């Protein structure tokens, strides 16, 4: 592996590191929204189980909460696309 690294030029190495960084960044950026969506849905399910008659209102708020949380993942996605060589 060190031989392969020694044969690559500085430009190639930089491109490779940028790709690795972009992928890592995207993966890390997706963790937070995943936890957030889990929290939103978990609490919505608790509410629906306690008060099934309020399911419509809870699901409305839940969907908007999921979509807002997902915006964070989209920011990570956009950074991934911008960084990708």
């Amino acid at each position, binding site marked *: 592996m060190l031989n392969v690294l020694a044969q690559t030029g500085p430009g190639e190495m930089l491109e490779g590191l940028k790709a690795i960084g972009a992928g890592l960044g*995207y993966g890390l950026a*997706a963790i937070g*929204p*995943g936890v957030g*969506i*889990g929290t939103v*849905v*978990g609490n919505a*399910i608790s509410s*629906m*189980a306690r008060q*099934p*008659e309020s*399911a*419509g*209102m809870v*699901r*409305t*708020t*839940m*969907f*908007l909460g*999921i*979509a*807002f949380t*997902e*915006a964070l*993942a*989209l*920011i990570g*996605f*956009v950074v*991934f*696309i*911008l960084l*990708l060589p």
Partner: protein
Amino acid sequence: MSNSVTVEPVAPESDIARHLARRVVLVSPVFLLVGVLGWGLDGLLSSALALVLVAVNFRLGAAIITRAAQISINALYGAVLGGYVVRLALMTAVVLIVKATGLLATVPFAITLLVTHLGLLAWESRHVAMTLAAPGLRPTK
């Protein structure tokens, strides 16, 4: 909580996703114009792709929730989290395929994707907040 617990047969998320998709059509000329004026044909295509992705993402998310809620609320939890991963993967795959063709202008794509997603959500939140708080004062648009 048993697996047989289901929620009432309403689908508010589908209505919200339909509203959002309709609003994507309303705001699309602005983003398409900015894309074509700033980045040419690539910008137009990239903005169009971002608008389609936003609308499809909302509709797919709502469809997953509606379908899972008909099964059980336990299925809802798994479907929403699984759907999140699947939707991100689909979006990534589509964008990488388009990027490989060389037609993707990343800046107009990024601007359109983020501004449309957040802007439309804020717009819809205003509508939903008024509807939930005071149904009589519900905005017409």
